[in-house]
């Protein structure tokens, strides 16, 4: 590993991978090289994995996230690597990827590898190469770090299933929320084929877990990514698709990626990027669905044209539409109601529950817990405080949430 060539390839193929939203190295349990095995390298620490660095876009760097190649025979309209695009192309050799992974890992730069690729020759040809790389890392190098592979669309089921033996996580991108949009923008892909793969892999995962001697098969589960704002699907449509994916295929994560126009993209695509704020709101809603006991209807009930309010985070928006539920008495309310208070995170809720077993909460306790008192002021009551009625009126609330709005607008501009 010492040529400028390699640095150039790395520049192109990391750059091409950076729009992939997933950077997590978690969810695959713990693992380490067995004792007495003289050659293994690596471990999984459990939990959410380790972020080894952060780039100025605020994202965690935990995996070597690269494409094997950005050449592609497909022509998905929204993709910079589509066959008809004229970007600079490059292709790593299998050995180069293995060496980079091992060398980076030994220096503690990364938790592992996230490998994806454009399609060269045929989907199977490409998928075979990806499987070979993962297999070699596991079997020749006894690599026990994290491996996340992206399956190649339309590759044969046998290859996709084999990848599961080496990968801690597999992602199968649905790309777009509806089959119509997919037909329009990614004509070579097919939603039924994609969900068929998810079903098969989910079956294999269940089998491996249920086996008498449970096998380690894609312990980190499956994830997927959807592009937001390339087609006309509403937020409700997108979130319904997510709910469906979470429940039918037990996906671990659905990632949302705001569309941005690419040079020479298809004319069917919008000319303007989707607001990053929309992507952010979708993640917030997704979070409420998974961890805050919200239902899709709660989140979108009364929403404008089935879209989330860009100006308000979905939890606050829900609270404003359900003013009659407030103020919530922090000393009495049950957990699910506490989770609905804007400004109270799951951890704060846990703390409140444990403190109030010993004594009733007062306002000073909230300050000491470092809760965002300005934000929760209209929504909560404690032993020595309840909000003046006028605070829950619309105008008063508007002034309280105003600072939050400005902040969001600023974020959007960046």
């Amino acid at each position, binding site marked *: 590993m010492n040529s400028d060539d390699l640095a150039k390839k790395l520049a192109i193929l990391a*750059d091409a991978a950076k729009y992939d939203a997933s950077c997590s190295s978690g969810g695959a349990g713990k693992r380490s090289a067995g004792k007495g095995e003289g050659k293994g*390298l690596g471990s999984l620490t459990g939990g959410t994995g*380790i972020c080894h660095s952060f780039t*100025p876009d605020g994202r965690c*760097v935990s995996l070597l996230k690269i494409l094997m190649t950005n050449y592609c025979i497909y022509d998905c309209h929204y*993709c*910079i*690597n589509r066959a008809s695009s004229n*970007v600079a192309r490059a292709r790593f050799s299998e050995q180069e990827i293995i060496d980079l992974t091992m060398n980076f890992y030994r220096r503690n730069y990364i938790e592992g590898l996230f490998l994806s690729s454009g399609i060269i020759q045929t989907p199977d040809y490409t998928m075979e190469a990806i499987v070979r790389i993962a297999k070699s890392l596991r079997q020749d190098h006894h690599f026990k770090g994290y491996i996340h592979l992206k399956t190649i669309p339309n590759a044969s089921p046998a290859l996709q299933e084999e990848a599961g033996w080496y990968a801690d996580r597999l992602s199968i991108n649905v790309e777009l929320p509806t089959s119509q949009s997919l037909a329009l923008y990614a004509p070579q892909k097919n939603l039924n084929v994609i969900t068929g793969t998810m079903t098969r892999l989910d079956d294999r995962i269940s089998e491996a877990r249920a086996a008498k001697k449970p096998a380690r098969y894609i312990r980190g589960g499956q994830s997927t990514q959807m592009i937001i704002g390339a087609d006309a699907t509403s937020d409700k449509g997108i979130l319904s698709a997510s709910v469906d994916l979470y429940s039918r295929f037990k996906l671990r994560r659905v990632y949302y990626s705001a569309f941005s126009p690419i040079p020479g993209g298809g004319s069917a695509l919008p000319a303007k990027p989707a607001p990053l704020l929309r992507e952010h709101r979708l993640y917030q809603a997704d979070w409420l669905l998974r961890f805050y006991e919200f239902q899709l209807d709660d989140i979108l009930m009364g929403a404008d044209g089935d879209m989330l309010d860009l100006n308000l985070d979905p939890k606050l928006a829900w609270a404003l539409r359900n003013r009659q539920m407030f103020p919530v008495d922090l000393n009495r309310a049950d957990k699910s109601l506490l989770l609905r208070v804007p400004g109270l995170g799951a951890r704060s809720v846990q703390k409140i529950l444990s403190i109030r077993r010993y004594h009733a909460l007062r306002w000073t306790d909230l300050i000491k817990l470092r809760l965002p008192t300005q934000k929760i002021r209209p929504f909560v009551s404690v032993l020595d405080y309840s909000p003046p009625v006028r605070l829950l009126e619309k105008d008063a609330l508007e002034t309280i949430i105003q600072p939050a709005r400005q902040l969001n607008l600023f*974020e959007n501009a960046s």
Partner: protein
Amino acid sequence: MQTLSIREKPGFTEWRDLARDLLQREIPPEQTLWECGAQGALALGSTPCAETREKAISSFRVSRTFLELCELASRHQDDQRYALLYRLLWRLHHEDRRLLARATDDDVMTLARLVKAVRRDAYKIKAFVRFREVKNPHGEPCYVCWYQPEHYTLELALPFFTTRFRNMRWSLMTPYRAAHWDGEALTLEDNPDPSRYPAFDEVERYWLQYYASIFNPARLKVKAMSGQMPQKYWKNLPEAALIPELIRRANPTQSSVNPLRPARNTAPQRESETPPERADPQSIRPSGLRAAKSDAP
């Protein structure tokens, strides 16, 4: 007034022995003065004989959790930590055995703050250590790092390294202590010499290239980055030298975005020593800055 001196770093065992003795002799926290790092001065009555120690243990038991929290908090660089711990011990004994459950008590909150800072610092070691490869006299590769934690947290991170890099030879040096792993056993060394940190690693340039390329300039969020990777840690990170340039290129108009005061050196000791050789940001160009979307399958 009793003056107690803790000589070790971080010094938990010393504190525990002294505290047991003080508690045994019913000396209230107001009458104690705790000093850290004083060389040589033996604390008054600091060597309780085995007998009294045993008595102290049996007359008062504290929960394992409390001791674990004390162990963590004792790693904080705050000079007041031992006084705080003894006060807590005293109050547990004389005031309320369930004191720790009172999450809004001032002492309990301070303890929680120290513990949290220490845990975070230990996590950051695991995240931010950057080994450089050298060959030892036998021509075998060794991986060496000079790392400056904010607190005395090296030992907390060691199980992670001995597990993950069990089959490598490595040395992890911090200003107060180094750990050397030869593939089988760990050796500790106090006050190691940072000049043993190699100035160069041939793979590091690829890491810098990767860091610059994986950054998405269309989504500049400097605050989010510095929240997770505060500047006090940048001195440990070769890639941090690229940050100002990456920000400037991503946002040439907004020169006021400047989180980039020179990093403050907050390591407990040997503050002047920083790792030699930093990357030249000019040599690493983030490529393909188009606001384009690539979405491989």
